[in-house]
């Protein structure tokens, strides 16, 4: 129940944050959020703040900054927009990162047994898949002297995708039997 209430509070807070358009208010909120993240009992606090900064700066660099620079060219001061967008994006991203470190997403969504179970399965296998993809890439790199031509790369992808497809189908069957034997469908 605690996780569900937190999820509801988080969603309300996200709507509130995304409707703010004052740079001053967003600056205060961002500072409070940074302090709150630092005070909360979560792992890798500094890393969370760094990641939120990186994510928000990346898109701001592509969207808000060109808009600001175009304003300079046209003789308009768009610095407030740049600040507001950066802070709003940062505060929302930091809230999301902190929130999902603080609560158990699967418990928060367990009002639907199927949905919760589906998310647990996908997220638990996701990291295995990420490391397998990395291993495939490194294996190819370590066995290659020169830059790969397009045909070889396409062949590589074909083999990788076939492997993952086979694995996915196999995982599907295994999961089905595991769930059935544990009485999930009863």
């Amino acid at each position, binding site marked *: 129940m605690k996780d569900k209430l937190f999820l509801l509070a988080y969603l309300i807070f996200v709507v509130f944050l995304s409707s703010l358009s004052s740079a001053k208010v967003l600056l205060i909120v961002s500072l409070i959020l940074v302090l709150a993240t630092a005070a909360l009992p979560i792992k890798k606090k500094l890393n969370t703040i760094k990641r939120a900064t990186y994510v928000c700066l990346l898109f701001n660099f592509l969207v808000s900054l060109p808009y600001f620079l175009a304003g300079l060219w046209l003789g308009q001061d768009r610095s407030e927009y740049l600040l507001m967008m950066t802070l709003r994006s940062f505060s929302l991203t930091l809230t999301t990162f902190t929130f999902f470190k603080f609560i158990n997403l699967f418990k928060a969504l367990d009002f639907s047994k199927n949905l919760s179970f*589906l998310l647990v399965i996908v997220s638990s296998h996701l990291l295995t898949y990420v490391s397998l993809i990395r291993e495939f890439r490194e294996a190819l790199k370590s066995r290659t002297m020169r830059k790969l031509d397009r045909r070889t790369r396409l062949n590589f992808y074909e083999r990788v995708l076939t492997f993952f497809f086979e694995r996915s189908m196999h995982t599907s069957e295994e999961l089905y039997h595991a769930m059935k034997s544990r009485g999930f469908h009863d």
Partner: protein
Amino acid sequence: MHIPDGFVAPQIYIPAYILDLLFVLYALRRFKSALQEKVIPYLASLSLFSFVISTLAIPLPGGTSVHGLGVAPISILFGYWVAFLSYSIILFLQATLLGEGGITTFPINSLLIALIGSLSAFYIHKVLRPMGESISLFVSGFGSTLLSALFLAITLGIHPYLFKDERGMPIYFPFDYSITLPALILPHIIVGFGEGLLNVLLVRKLKKRINYER
């Protein structure tokens, strides 16, 4: 193509959440009645497979490479509702666990990439199939990517017209259609080319495997 948080207005993403949720529930119901007990493992494994497809950079002529979306092959092989559901799950986990895309922009990404992408890929392939399998597969991958990009450009480009402060300055996404349409459509022509190639490669390879199993 993922949009991060802060650029989309609540007046856009809240209705998008409701719409997305309705589509998810409808798709899940259809899917569940067909597969019954196997629904969860099947969806989970296809979501993982969608994720794998979206992580690979497809090499293009000229030495460049692009990341595929991976919606088109899943849609053609398993149907558009399956593709929509499995890709939405990945988008949700990417937004919440991996920090890619945003929680406020999740329904926009889900509706535009997963739903429009999978629907358009499926029907383009169906309509063009008499012209030849390779052509229809390539065009469906290419067309679905461009259509998703077009709808994304429309969704983002409407913001400066609707949401301004008292001085007429935008308070969300700042660029109108004159910028969003070329800025999103032109790069996605290259992405679409890669997606088309991936679609031909993957569907041809996996169709034999699926037919064998059936």
